[in-house]
């Protein structure tokens, strides 16, 4: 069964290779071993305290595994600095939304686009060098400046600011926050904030997008909408790792599911298969709230 799946979805993007994580005497992750393949939506589920977020944090560099390693695109990532991991192509959202509250929605996303930009501090200071060519849409409107830019090119800072703004607006439109782009993040309604966080993460141009309980606090209609969004994200060529509580959401959208309980992997397979797994059923019976 696993063999056929692998052949369907191509190469492995992220590999969690027998990872164990201990805090003092507590074993948070015990020999967890799974992988994500390019272009799939993987669900990582488990009851509260199963170690989902811990696993997630290990993948994004917050914790360093005690044993085993995590490889992304063939590169070791365990123990790297968070911004290096972002540069490699992993982006994430937070379970308890962590936007930059005093920045506008647009600025929040632009922080994300900056991750791929090359403007240095000196470049931003002097705006002289290096110079690049840009498309006509990005040229300044003022006629004199336009002519100058056509002859000498524009500074990279200018080009990247323009491109960043355009990309950010595009992403805001994609997640449906564009209508309130210039409002402060903290003034946005809850659903907007969740989606804004996804846009901000996508702005870093990741290969793998990790969503940490993105549907928490949503009503069923919003959840439905979110599932559509996640599929659309995958259709843009991103691989998605979805950590979720809500089985129904996970079942509806994921290609494959990994189930954790007490820091140990108890199941790994396609949704229908996992749903029938007696261990998984047992684990979830202990927590009736999650059925909702």
């Amino acid at each position, binding site marked *: 069964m696993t063999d056929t799946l692998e052949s369907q979805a191509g190469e492995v993007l992220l590999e969690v290779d027998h990872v164990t994580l201990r805090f003092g005497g507590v074993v948070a992750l015990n020999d967890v071993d799974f992988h994500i393949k390019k272009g799939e939506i993987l669900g990582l589920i488990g009851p509260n305290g199963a170690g989902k977020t811990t696993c997630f944090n290990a993948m*994004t560099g917050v914790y360093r595994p005690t044993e085993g390693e995590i490889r992304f695109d063939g590169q070791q990532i365990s123990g790297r*600095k*968070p*911004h290096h991991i*972002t*540069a490699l192509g992993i*982006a*994430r959202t*937070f379970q308890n939304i*962590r*936007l*930059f*509250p*005093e*920045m506008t929605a647009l*600025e929040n996303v*632009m*922080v*994300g686009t*900056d*991750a*791929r*930009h090359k*403007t240095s*501090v000196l470049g*931003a*200071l002097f*705006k002289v060098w290096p110079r690049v060519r840009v498309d006509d849409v990005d040229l300044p409107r003022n006629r004199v400046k336009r002519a100058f830019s056509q002859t000498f090119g524009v500074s990279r*800072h200018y080009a*990247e*600011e323009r491109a*960043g703004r355009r990309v950010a607006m595009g992403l805001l439109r994609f997640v449906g926050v564009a209508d309130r782009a210039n409002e*402060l993040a*903290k003034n946005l309604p809850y659903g907007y904030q969740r989606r804004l966080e996804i846009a*901000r*993460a996508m702005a*870093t141009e990741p290969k793998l997008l990790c969503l940490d309980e993105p549907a928490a606090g949503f009503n069923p209609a919003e959840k439905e909408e979110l599932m559509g969004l996640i599929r659309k994200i995958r259709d843009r060529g991103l691989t998605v790792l979805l950590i979720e509580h809500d089985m129904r959401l996970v079942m509806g959208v994921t290609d494959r599911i990994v189930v954790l309980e007490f820091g140990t992997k108890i199941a790994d397979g396609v949704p229908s298969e996992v749903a029938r797994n007696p261990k998984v059923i047992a684990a979830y019976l202990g927590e009736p709230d999650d059925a909702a």
Partner: protein
Amino acid sequence: MPEISELWKSVNLRERWETAPTWVRMIVSGILLAIAIYLPFLNVLPFAYIRTDLSTGGSDWSGVLTTIVIYMIVATGLNVVIGMAGLLDLGYVGFYAIGAYSLALFGSPDSPVTHWFADKFGLSEGWSVPFVACVPIAIAIALAAGVVLGAPTLRLRGDYLAIVTMGFGEIIRIISRNANGLTNGPNGITNVPTPPGPKDPDTGQPFFNPIDGYRWYWLCLAVLILLIWLVRRLEYSRVGRSWLAIREDEDAAAVMGVSGFKYKLWAFAIGAAVGAIAGLLFGSKQTFVEPTGFALNLSFLFVAMVVIGGSGNMVGALFGAFLITYLPERFRGLSDWRPFCFGVALVLVMILRPQGLIPNRRRARELEDRRLEAEEVATDD
């Protein structure tokens, strides 16, 4: 009284400024600049009452203006560190001293350093590095000092950073006082060079001399405007966004690919360079530097300038620098009561207007939120 403050609110200058068309803004800026340039010659009553040299024992007005502008440069630099990057630097006077001393050590024919060079390379008596060459030297030394101080300490939490920077400021002062062979020790260094310019044909005085104080004022004003322009560029770029993101939520910023350490270090280094430029102008204007001019309380004064004006807001920081430098000069009549009044004023301003006199909008909102939050907690009880 409430009417007055209501009236002020209804005028809503900030909103008007921000929504005004570009040409209005340019004209208003031009007028403000013209007033600033004209200020040293202001002699029309009643406006001339703002001059400091009309009262008995008052200071030269151009000299005071120059000092104000130099401290405004300091506030601009410190605002990058405190206001934008959110790092508490209590040793900023160290960079100010580095700027002044770099100029003195390399530019003055009286300094042990130039003597050493002259001896070593058989240069003529009275040889020294020209002023123009000293400027990049001073900036480079300050940048290096900023990096040397920042690299090991920026990983520390905020309050630890405060004490370490404070120690740095003291170390700079003590070294300049104790290292007799390098800095002339407590006697200081005389004959610090002034910027080049055509000599006065009548008196033979250099172009930048203390009597024609307005020239110094204009020079410092030009430097200030240049620096503000550059800092604003940073503020509205990837760099400014990164600083803001770090200030708001450092972990989230890291996950978004912002290297907190790198940008903090940059903020530190930029602040250091700006502080050094201010110190360099100070030393040059004074033509004399000595260690007691860089005492620890000057650092506190600098921080007070930024905070009282409105942390994170450039206009606020400039206004704070203006008030803190100008008022003690204007009210010389209070003499020994000035520090007391200053203390009372600091406490009152902070209690009545914790967001600063001209706050950063973001900061003001942040503060308002915190206040509301506190009130909610209080009513919950």
